[in-house]
């Protein structure tokens, strides 16, 4: 009898554990004025959008491991108090691709909340054109603040448009600077050996000389240490790009990998590989492997995210207290535009309170909201020391984790100075000085295409891209000799390059 009972209990336990998995949790934000926070009420002045009744608006928020959404986050309370809105938040685990998957599921199955922030506007636009989200411009008359902001930031806003020219996304701005990639070098090593960058900005030959000198000093090293994305980031220095791009000087679309400049770039890299001035596994090296190279004095110059100067620098300091990265102007003074903002917010068209929701979205673009949702409230989330703002947290990461400020969804636009506060000296220098070298954001990166054009891009474009990627690896590694260059160019033209460029030209005409 007891054996059967145990078995029954185990089976029941198994069944219950199966039913206990839910992905979404509803955050109960109906906690305005809880006991602990009785003292500091009224976070803002009297900005109340809905002065009469509290309006409930639902919002989807990604639950990122670095800063999990807390119900008592300052950002949420600030929005609620300033606008008299109750935010009904649906948290979605954002590990890996979960957020995008959940988003797609909600669009397909129905049940989207009113407000949906997204990391990538392209995905949102696909569904928006099928009717999932409202067209922002249809309600422009009711959103004066947004209208004014768009007029001041027209170019930036255009990057969020769909291929039919409509604007379905409320543009975000402010986190682009974290995406910026810059050239940086081991300042302490250069100072130790009295090395100097010959002319600023350095030319490819100048770079080669420095690399040779570093190799003599450290024979085991690979002075120019990049990961595989280094090719894309370095190629603008040779006045070319690894893909189709719009040549502003000649007003036409060109394909980088068939240009003579690209050949020069590949020959330069090939020389570096032959002389062991760059790691032979540059195409397969992992991020950890690359960081190891930098920390162990096996690589001294690299191109990567500006934040790495601080994070890898901190790792390096554990071994060598003098370890320091310095900002280096890009080779030939040209760098790719990488400080791109992807985040945006969309409003679901099946929402029952569209008029209320757009009022809230409009509020996000007021100066008060931008300031509030970046820094918070003085005394509570930041204090002023020597006339400069300093957040009440250990770091920017901690700041976001504690208060939820500047996270996607709980703002549309935020100021950049709060991010820069956590940058080291050199990273700040990089952020301030890099823009002068950066190219304009190329239309190819954000131009939206119709379905027919997308088909050409995904067939001819993808195939040509694949062949070019394959070939560049073979040329650089020496598996293909540069004598075969003409055959390679002919092959690409045979694959339909002209048709691809033609498609882009026509799409750009429409875009303009």
């Amino acid at each position, binding site marked *: 009898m007891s054996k059967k009972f145990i078995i029954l209990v185990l089976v029941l336990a198994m069944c219950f554990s199966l039913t206990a998995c839910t992905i979404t949790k509803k955050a109960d934000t109906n906690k305005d004025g809880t006991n602990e926070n009785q003292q500091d009420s009224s976070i803002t002045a009297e900005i109340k959008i809905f002065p009469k009744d509290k309006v409930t608006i639902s919002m989807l928020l990604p639950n990122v491991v670095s800063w999990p959404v807390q119900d008592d986050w300052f950002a949420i309370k600030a929005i609620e108090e300033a606008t008299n809105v109750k935010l009904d938040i649906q948290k979605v685990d954002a590990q890996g691709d979960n957020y995008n998957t959940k988003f797609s599921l909600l669009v397909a199955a129905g049940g989207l909340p009113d407000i949906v922030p997204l990391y990538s506007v392209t995905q949102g636009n696909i569904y928006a054109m099928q009717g999932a989200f409202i067209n922002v411009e249809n309600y422009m008359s009711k959103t004066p603040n947004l209208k004014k902001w768009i007029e001041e930031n027209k170019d930036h806003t255009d990057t969020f448009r769909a291929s039919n020219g409509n604007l379905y996304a409320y543009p975000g701005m402010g986190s682009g600077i974290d995406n910026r990639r810059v050239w940086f070098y081991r300042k302490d090593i250069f100072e130790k050996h009295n090395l100097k960058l010959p002319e600023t900005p350095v030319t490819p030959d100048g770079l080669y000389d420095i690399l040779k000198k570093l190799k003599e000093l450290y024979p085991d090293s690979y002075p120019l240490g990049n990961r595989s994305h280094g090719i894309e980031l370095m190629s603008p220095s040779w006045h070319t790009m690894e893909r189709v791009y719009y040549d502003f000087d000649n007003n036409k679309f060109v394909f980088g990998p068939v240009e003579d400049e690209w050949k020069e770039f590949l020959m330069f890299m090939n020389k570096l590989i032959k002389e062991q001035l760059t790691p032979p*596994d540059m*195409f*397969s090296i992992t991020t950890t492997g690359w960081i190891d190279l930098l920390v162990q004095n096996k690589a001294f110059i690299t191109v990567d995210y500006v934040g790495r100067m601080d994070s890898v620098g901190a790792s390096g300091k554990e071994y060598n207290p003098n370890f320091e990265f310095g900002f280096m102007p890009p080779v030939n003074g040209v760098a790719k535009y990488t400080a791109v903002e992807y985040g945006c917010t969309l409003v679901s068209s099946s929402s029952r309170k569209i008029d209320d929701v757009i009022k809230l979205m409009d509020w996000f673009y007021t100066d008060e909201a931008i300031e509030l949702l970046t820094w918070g409230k003085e005394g509570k989330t930041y204090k002023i020391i020597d006339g400069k703002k300093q957040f009440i947290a250990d770091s920017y990461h901690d700041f976001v984790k504690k208060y939820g400020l500047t996270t996607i969804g709980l703002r549309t636009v935020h100021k950049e100075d709060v991010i820069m506060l956590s940058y080291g000296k050199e990273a700040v220098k990089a952020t301030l000085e890099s823009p002068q070298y950066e190219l304009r954001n190329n239309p190819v990166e954000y131009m939206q295409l119709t379905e027919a054009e997308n088909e050409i891009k995904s*067939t001819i474009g993808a195939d040509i891209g694949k062949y070019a990627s*394959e070939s560049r*690896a073979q040329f650089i590694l020496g598996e293909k000799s540069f004598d075969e260059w003409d055959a390679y160019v002919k092959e690409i033209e045979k*694959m339909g390059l002209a048709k691809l460029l033609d498609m882009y030209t026509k799409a750009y005409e429409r875009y303009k």
Partner: protein
Amino acid sequence: MILFVEIIKRELNIKRLLQPDKSRQRNDLLRKVIRSKYLLILLLPCIIYYILFAYLPMWGILIAFKNYQLFAGFLKSPWVGFKYFKLFFSSPDIFELLRNTFLIGLYSLIWGFPFPLIFALILNEVKNLKFKKLVQTISYMPHFLSTVVVVGLIQLFLSPTYGFVNQILQRLRCGTIVFLQKSSYFRTIYISSGVWQNLGWNAIIYIAALTNIDPNLYEAAKIDGANRFNCLIYITLPCISQTIITLFLLSTGNIVSVGFEKVFLLSNDAVLNVADVIQTYVWRQGLQNANFSYGTAVGLFNSVINLLFLVMGNFLARRYSETSLW
């Protein structure tokens, strides 16, 4: 009158006796079901699972022939016929793709098949029970590692700067080989790491089958003067031949389904010519536009090829052995 009734009764009785089929069969079936009700209840969740998640969704295959619009739904999206299939086959690299996919699948089958079997046979000869269990447990631990972890290990071991394989090569003065960037090593790395990972897990079924062999057969053979090798060939292998053939047939059903994860993580620009398989190709296409229809069309093509191989394999198995799936 009574005689008349008696005659009819007897006729009805005869009729009932001459009708064993329906009612008695139904009674038999019912009795069988009731007798094995616990087994059927045990099977029920599996059946429900397959109906819900394998059979019912099958009708979604029709979006391979439509231009699937999310909001129009399955029924209202426009028909496009074989457009996506034509799109897939018109790619200039299609032969390379098919070759890569097929070769990786074929080599995985050929290499991934004998090793678990040999491992099970060897383990079966071990006398020390504790050691046997220990080895078996350790051998199927790698199966539970995720693909990302395994690829991370591969990248660690094969790195030209700090990987131990290259360090050994350097000691032997063979120079450094950047394994992960050479097309000639790609398939070897992919398949050997797969064999290592799944060796123990795939051997489990063989080990179980081996324990079912009657020990009397071995004793009889030993009396007749058979050595170990003879036992293997004449007793062990024939006894588990059914298991071997069945598992082999099931594997052929997966020959073209080269998973996306491992290939994607192991590949880089330098090995694209051998590392690009159907799934990575579709992923690249699909990245430009969330093209559900395209993905479904290619998936359908994959399944059809797998089915062809399975049918062919089964036909051969039926022809040349007594074991087959149907």
